[in-house]
């Protein structure tokens, strides 16, 4: 809904190390900013209600649901998305681990799974398979690849 009487706000933030300046409606979520304003379609919209984790990104190194965050509240923050991981054709080792462990079928949840796993490893919680499964409960996979997802994360984390 566009209402010309409505406020628009300026926002400056870093995404995958690159500075962005945009002017947006205050009701724009971080997820919609990434996808609709910046064309970064790697971060997925599943439930759009914080239940599925497909939109997981790192903000200042911490994983959150981009669908439940207002973009304007991320002023000055450092956002990392799935697009920031590979270097050219060289996959990030965690992406490579997902390939090697067959940790996906349709792939829709995969960017969120990988960003969540990076957050989990950064939190120092990737201790064993049971702990990884518990700490990944905010990321659903409708294809049922969870055992292989946990295996891929454990292999990468050395757990």
């Amino acid at each position: 809904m566009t209402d010309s009487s409505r406020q628009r706000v300026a926002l400056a933030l870093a995404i995958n190390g690159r500075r962005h300046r945009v002017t947006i409606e205050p009701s724009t979520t971080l997820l919609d900013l990434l996808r609709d304003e910046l064309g970064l379609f790697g971060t997925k919209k599943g439930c759009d209600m914080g239940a599925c984790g497909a939109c997981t990104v790192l903000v200042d190194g911490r994983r959150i649901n981009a669908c439940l965050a207002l973009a304007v509240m991320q002023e000055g923050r450092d956002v990392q998305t799935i697009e920031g991981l590979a270097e050219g054709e060289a996959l990030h080792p965690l992406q490579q681990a997902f390939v090697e462990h067959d940790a996906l079928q349709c792939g829709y949840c995969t960017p969120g799974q990988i960003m969540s796993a990076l957050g989990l490893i950064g939190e120092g919680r990737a201790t064993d398979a049971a702990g990884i499964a518990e700490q990944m409960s905010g990321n659903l996979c409708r294809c049922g690849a969870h055992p292989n997802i946990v295996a891929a994360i454990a292999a990468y984390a050395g757990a």
Partner: protein
Amino acid sequence: MHAFDYARATEPSQALDLARRPDAAFIAGGTDLLQLWKAGIARPELMIDISRLALDIVKPRDDGIAIGALARLSDVADHPIVQARWPLIAEALNAGASAQVRNAATIGGNLLQRTRCAYFRSGDMPCNKRAPGSGCPAIGGENRSHAIFGGSPHCVATHASDLAVALAALDASVRVAGPAGSRLVGIGDFYLLPGDTPQRETVLGQGQLICAVDVPATAGRAAYVKVRDRASFEFAVVSVAADLVIDDGIVARARLAAGGVGTRPWRLTEAEAALIGERADAAAFDKAAAQASNGAEPLAHNAFKVELLRRTVRRALQVAGGKA
């Protein structure tokens, strides 16, 4: 979706000034408010961003701990002094939501989250909490998840916070700031019963802000037991927080609070009384647990909670009592 304006507060006094508008809402973590906004349930004209206020400090003292309202759930759960001296709080926080939500959600917002009653969340079915006077379809409808304590003919929705259950067992207080100054409200007085005004859930007035939660020191042994429909990232069917002080094998103090069963976090005073002066053993725990559901008023689909609560209390007492 409903559009809104935005203002970023840099001082608490500025946030309170902005909130004089009756159509304003505070936003911090946003994990509940944005769900409610997307469902058309919350329709603020102004979002006041309080996330940058310096109210995120966790400050232990000799006689207790002050937890800033804007502290993130994950930061509080990971705080070494919280883990060492108030493990009940860490356990309850880690039993709730997902890692992503815990990284964003705040202590104050957790206490103010709205019920998960599906009729309320639907956004368009009748609900006295959302649209006063429209009726309560849960009372004669799907009420498996609803309250067996504290309901009224107008609302039987449970309160969803795990943290609030732990805080109820710990006799915590909520520090509330408003235009007229700040006051301390015991957690037992903070939440209102639905009565005939289920839209009013707490004593917070329009434009008032939670600044902190004060938790007294405890020497108790604690346990938080949460029974739910899946192993993680799920609200409680029934949960119990126990805090037991045991001297020479005798229960000197017992505090029990339950979630998933009441329209607000529910202290189990009769079960507590049954423990005082008793030897802390299986027989005493069974006897106390048998009192846990006294006064329950089950609905058509949630009578199982009456026995489930007793069993969850027994488990919580066994776990807490078994700690050194």
